[in-house]
């Protein structure tokens, strides 16, 4: 509504002509200026400007809803009250039904922890017929890091929903509903987002996955100027959020981790007295990974799920959510995707919920067990980096 045209708002002709003559055409133009600026620019009195601004504001202001009508609307109009169930019982309960529509859900964790596995499963769930608890629609998968594996997708499908995938042509039908985009540069990524916006309205699209958001931002090719990149991230954030909002579909975004610099204080100036303590804590420095994309992005996501591994056990943690308590679930990756070891979860106290551990690293367990299936290297190839590590390790063992 920011681009409403002033001449269409029913202001007195005399004043709306003045606005037009000064090239102030939309409410965005008018409201970006203060009243004093407008008096100067339009050469009319303060009282006229005030009443015009009041009128423009009234016309631009979106209508209000009471929380009650909002809730009734959600319950009536949306399937499953606006949630896509993840089929992980404990997690669904914690999230009041699953991944919410119209909001941004982020998965963050180290390479190879299972973020892509989670995304593949969600894409399948969106494609499943409603009789099996899916959304019976299409899913768009923006695969930034070339990690999407259709073979793995079918494998997860066949293992988790055998009753559907055994039917003739059903595997083809389900996989056909998942559309993969592979942008190769930041500008292509921006372009594909804009394309997605158009097609969401026309084609039954019920889920958007971006794997991963950090891919282009942490790339080394354009590290020279930092400020425009931040600006572009801001643009992407508001674009994706408004996309979620107006189309009312769930948007799932993955994010990478990076190690924290020593000089990065995560404190306010008034906490300064504790400073030395924290820097000296070696364990904290060793294990401390933080989410890439920084604090600006972290504010923007509605739900943040942290995937981490601690002493060889993987956990999924609800780190930020307006509806759920801070809670962690141990999980394993099986041939049917992610499954929780127990549905009750462990309540996490304090800021621990935000930390991302990566101890007792995972692929060690696979190597010692000797179950690295080379034809489906799904748990390992998180990024190029981790797969290089695996190669090095195998060689050194040999």
């Amino acid at each position, binding site marked *: *509504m*920011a681009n409403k045209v002033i001449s269409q708002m029913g202001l007195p002709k005399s004043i709306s002509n003045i606005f037009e003559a000064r090239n102030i055409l939309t*409410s*965005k133009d008018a409201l*970006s200026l*203060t*009243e*004093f600026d407008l*008096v100067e620019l339009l*050469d*009319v*009195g*303060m*009282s006229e400007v005030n009443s015009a601004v*009041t009128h*423009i*504001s*009234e016309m*631009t*202001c*979106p209508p*209000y809803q*009471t*929380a*009650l*009508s909002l*809730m009734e609307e*959600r319950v009536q109009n949306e399937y499953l009250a606006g949630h896509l169930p993840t089929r992980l019982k404990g997690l669904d309960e914690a999230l*009041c039904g699953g991944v919410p529509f119209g909001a*941004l859900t982020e998965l963050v964790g180290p390479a190879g922890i299972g973020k892509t596995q989670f995304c593949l499963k969600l894409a399948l769930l969106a494609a499943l017929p409603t009789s099996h608890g899916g959304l019976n629609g299409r899913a768009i998968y923006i695969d930034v890091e070339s990690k999407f594996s259709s073979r793995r997708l079918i494998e997860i499908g066949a293992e988790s929903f055998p009753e559907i995938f055994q039917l003739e042509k059903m595997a083809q039908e389900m996989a056909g509903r998942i559309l993969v985009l592979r942008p190769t540069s930041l500008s292509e990524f921006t372009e594909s987002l804009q394309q997605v916006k158009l097609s969401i309205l026309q084609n039954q699209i019920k889920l958007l996955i971006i794997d991963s958001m950090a891919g282009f931002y942490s790339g080394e090719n354009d590290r020279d100027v930092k400020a425009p990149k931040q600006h572009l991230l*801001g*643009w992407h954030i*508001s674009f994706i*959020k*408004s996309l979620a*909002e107006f189309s009312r579909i769930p948007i799932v975004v993955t994010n990478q981790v990076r190690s924290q610099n020593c000089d990065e*204080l*995560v*404190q*306010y*100036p*008034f*906490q300064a007295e504790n400073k030395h303590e924290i820097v000296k804590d070696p364990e904290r420095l060793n294990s401390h990974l933080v989410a890439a994309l920084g*604090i*600006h992005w*972290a*504010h*923007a996501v*509605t739900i*943040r799920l942290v995937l981490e591994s601690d002493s060889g056990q993987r956990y999924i943690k609800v*780190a*930020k959510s*307006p*509806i759920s*308590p801070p*809670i962690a679930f141990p999980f394993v990756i099986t041939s049917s995707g992610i499954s929780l070891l127990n549905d*009750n979860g462990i*309540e996490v*106290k*304090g800021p621990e919920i935000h930390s991302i551990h990566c101890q007792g690293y995972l692929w060690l367990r696979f190597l010692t067990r000797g179950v690295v299936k080379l034809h489906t290297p799904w748990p390992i190839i998180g990024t190029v980096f981790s797969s290089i590590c695996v190669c090095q390790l195998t060689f050194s063992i040999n």
Partner: protein
Amino acid sequence: MEVSSLPLSPTHRGKLISAGYTTILSLASVSPHHLARDLNVTHDEAIAILNVALKNDKSGESNPTRSIVTGAQNAWDMLREEDMLRRITTSCGDLDNILGGGISCKEVTEIGGVPGIGKTQLGIQLAVNVQIPVAYGGLGGKAVYIDTEGSFMVERVYQIAEACIANIMENHVLPRKDNQVCQETMQCNSFLENIFYFRICSYTEQIAVINYLDMFIEEHKDVKIVIIDSVTFHFRQDFDDLAQRTRVLSTMALKLMKIAKKFGLAVVLLNQVTNKVVEGSFQLSLALGDSWSHACTNRVILYWNGNERYAFIDKSPSLRSASAPYSVTGRGIRDSTSQCKRTRMM
């Protein structure tokens, strides 16, 4: 006082100055008819100019029986008025203590903190708590919730409202007659009905809503709190000219203060944090820059201290700078001591 400082259109101002009316004093004794002739403007315009000029001229109206300066209020009256005002409880005793009893009406309070610390939770809690009926020591008001980020979850509001009602029922035993009346108003659905929710998708809409609030609250007089979650989001994008952003922000802040004073309601702004480079190292600080930090009356920062959430009063004209622990539970914001007793809510 100079004519050039009056909020007049440049044409009128130019005409006044060229006709020799450079000070407000020179306008004080002139008749509209005379002025219209001198400036070569219509009679109505002349009256409008005089109105603007004389309204600004405070020295002209000295009426010692009422007050020495019109529009002023003496400190004693203000104190009495402040004591009359009820505060909105946060449902956390420690937090209420450092806030002097809760979020105060007639003031703008800014609350900031890192992602996931509980800003939205506190916002929702306040939107519910403002509705606690007067009989139970609340304000019995309504709430305006302006959501710029889409993080407002109705399911959560329902949970918090339910817990709030249960709490009141436990703690207060009223005579039967009163109780019946209150039972009717104490329904979850009526709590939800009294929250007016605006979803904002651009900074233009945010300014528009704030301009429109004046009119909206005129119609809904019992609105006692306005919550903006978050004031930052759209202003961090879309602005190339930072000087203009500062100007727009400070006019917005002035309008919010005006609304708070005029209707005697609390304005709560939730703010994000950002990394700021101070002497070569990163520090956390609230977003929107240094000039914005003058905009609010009180500023509260939420932060992690060890394993507990704390609130710190960063800025306030009347409160001591202090910090207090709080916790976010399934039932909403609560005292942190209750944390150990907490069971997982499903």
